């Protein structure tokens, strides 16, 4: 990393210049300024904070990074756009690409555009459709004041992706968004997905580095708004280079009778700290959360999940599975929170970890906070190694030991993929994970 970059950082002067160049609606600039003030007030989290006690970021230096050039000059052209793993074999309704926090391209099927669907760069679309989007921004699905990273994203997000589906519009073909960085780059992505009542859509989003060993920073947010009776299937695959710092606040709001199926895949980054929250805000909402993590080297992936039952008769079901190699580490802290009015809640959370090395470590911390008295909440977690008897069995069928390990790991993840109902999406995700599985060194 060059010293020129180290000198810039996130200064007040840089922020003022950044806003001045943005040409955004006043309400949005105002939101940014408030978040910036909060960003400046807050310290970086440390291991003294309960949520961070297992995730040490003392080696992370924010001032090594800088705000993206507001006009995007030059930055977008750095490096080749990485290959999109989730797009393979999928008939897409639209594609958007963001590079180093700048929109590179966006395409949407004209037939969808005609129905009022908006898809593409959030940065561009918010200028054109500010009045439409303002209430969704102001809903503050992700709390911009939650911590320093949430505030930084709220103040400085750039590029970003929007999917807006009007009332009752059903989209068959998935929409695909790729957000990439070059080595040392910064991704301040914000994803906003809005499904108006009765809408139906599938979105595939992935993040990747031009250089698989490269560094950089992602400080991002994802907001999924699923209104009454709407159905959203959302997949996000994190495949950053192995030196990237990944900080993300991700949250879904699901209204009455809404359905959200949210699948995350995490393969990349040096250290990831992700808050993935789902809130069921109206009765009879249903949420399914799936997670697949595959770590190696000294990677550290930390996920805080929160299933927030705010209304009655809602159902949430979370399954996270991690396979760990080398000296890598995962932390999963899962909370099911049931408010007093959320009677007849049916909530489940489960975390399974497959240890592929003796030096790997997986922490699994489930939690329940229940205020209502008529609920069903269960949780479970397992951690284990590949079973020697399973290996022997496969070897007696002509598998080499390594082939057997890969097969067993693939099977371990398959149980998550099985929950994904759209075949092309399921295949694309299992193919993306499968590539990494095929690199397993063996035991």
């Amino acid at each position, binding site marked *: 990393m060059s010293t020129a970059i180290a000198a810039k950082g996130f200064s007040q002067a840089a922020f003022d210049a950044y806003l001045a160049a943005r040409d955004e609606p006043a309400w949005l600039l105002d939101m940014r300024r408030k978040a910036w003030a909060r960003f400046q007030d807050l310290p970086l989290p440390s291991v003294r904070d309960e949520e961070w006690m297992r995730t040490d970021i003392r080696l992370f230096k924010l001032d090594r990074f800088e705000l993206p050039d507001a006009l995007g000059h030059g930055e977008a052209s750095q490096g080749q756009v990485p290959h999109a793993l989730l797009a393979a074999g999928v008939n897409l309704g639209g594609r958007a690409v963001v590079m180093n926090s700048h929109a590179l391209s966006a395409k949407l099927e004209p037939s969808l555009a005609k129905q009022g669907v908006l898809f593409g760069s959030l940065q561009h679309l918010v200028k054109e459709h500010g009045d439409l989007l303002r209430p969704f921004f102001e809903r503050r699905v992700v709390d911009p004041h939650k911590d320093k990273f949430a505030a930084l994203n709220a103040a400085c997000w750039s590029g970003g992706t929007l999917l807006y589906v009007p009332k009752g519009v059903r989209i068959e073909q998935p929409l695909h968004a790729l957000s990439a960085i070059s080595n040392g780059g910064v991704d301040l992505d914000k994803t906003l997905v809005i499904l108006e009542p009765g809408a139906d859509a599938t979105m595939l989003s992935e993040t990747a580095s031009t250089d698989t060993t490269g560094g950089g920073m992602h400080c991002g947010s994802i907001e999924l708004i699923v209104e009454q009776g709407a159905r959203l299937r959302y997949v996000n695959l994190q495949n950053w280079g192995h030196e990237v710092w990944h900080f993300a606040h991700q949250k879904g709001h699901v209204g009455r009778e809404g359905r959200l199926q949210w699948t995350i895949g995490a393969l990349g980054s040096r250290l990831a700290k992700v808050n993935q929250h789902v809130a069921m805000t109206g009765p009879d909402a249903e949420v399914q959360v799936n997670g697949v993590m595959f770590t190696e080297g000294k990677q550290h992936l930390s996920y805080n999940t929160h299933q927030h039952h705010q209304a009655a008769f809602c159902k949430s079901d979370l399954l996270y599975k991690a396979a760990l190699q080398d000296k890598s580490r995962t932390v999963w802290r899962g909370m099911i929170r049931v408010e007093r009015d959320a009677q007849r809640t049916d909530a489940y959370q489960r975390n399974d970890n497959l240890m592929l090395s003796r030096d790997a470590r997986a922490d699994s911390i489930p939690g329940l906070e229940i205020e209502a008295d008529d609920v069903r909440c269960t949780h479970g977690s397992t951690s284990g190694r590949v079973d020697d008897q399973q290996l022997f*069995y496969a*070897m007696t069928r*002509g598998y080499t030991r390594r082939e057997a390990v890969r097969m067993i790991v693939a099977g371990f993840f398959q149980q998550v993929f099985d929950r994904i109902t759209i075949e092309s999406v399921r295949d694309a995700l299992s193919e993306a994970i499968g590539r990494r599985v095929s690199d397993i060194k063996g035991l």
Partner: protein
Amino acid sequence: MIETLKITNLHVSVGEKQILNGVNLTINRGEVHALMGPNGSGKSTLAGVIMGHPNYEVTEGTIELNGQDILEWDATERARAGVFMAFQRPMAIPGVKMADFLRHATTNVRNPQRKEGEQLIPMREFRKELREKMTQLKMDEEFARRYVNDGFSGGEMKRAEILQMAMLRPKFAILDETDSGLDVDAVKLASQSIAEIGGAEMGILIITHHDRLLEHNTPDFTHVILGGRIVETGGVELARELYTEGYEKVRERHPEDAAIEKEMAAKDKQLVGGGV
């Protein structure tokens, strides 16, 4: 040349415990051998050690396949050389479909030199063959889409083992209590199935407590194992005698081996009692 699996003076231990005390057994391809013996006499150990289970330590003796010593080979190499075992308790592999598992296995066993990542048998060709074999074994097609042994009933597991044997077409197959846990009809079906998939082409070692599995696979030889040694070898009539009359007479005829059997059982108890 007749292909042969030859076991000579095989001594095997697990940890501190000596289990096989000099087993001699020669199986030619095309022969059916039955191996019978009381619990704890070393039947499953013999099966496991032929297959190359890493927990068993061979302290003396040899296992040869067509004159070649295979003791140093791992299970993968033995499988690819044409040795198969139907497990008494097959392992479940959740998330892996039977058809995918078998396609990979079949490719490897039929192309022993195959390197990882090289082409698998073409899907269409494989599916056709698998469907034929499943029809022959009266198995529902749905079976191929289920996860390997995951949630299978006892009978389904054993039939899945026979299906695997049918696809892998081994030269030598060891059936470790393929009849255990099955009802009379299921054993009958298993017995027929083994014969139907071309049991005559293989050298088969059937480890069993009953004679029913032998109904359609009449043994050319019946061996009795006691205290870790094969103490008697006879024809099919010996299998019937053992099934109807038990092992008391065998113990009387071989008091030394019966004494070793007793000693092994006592050690087992000690180990259990000692909390090991």
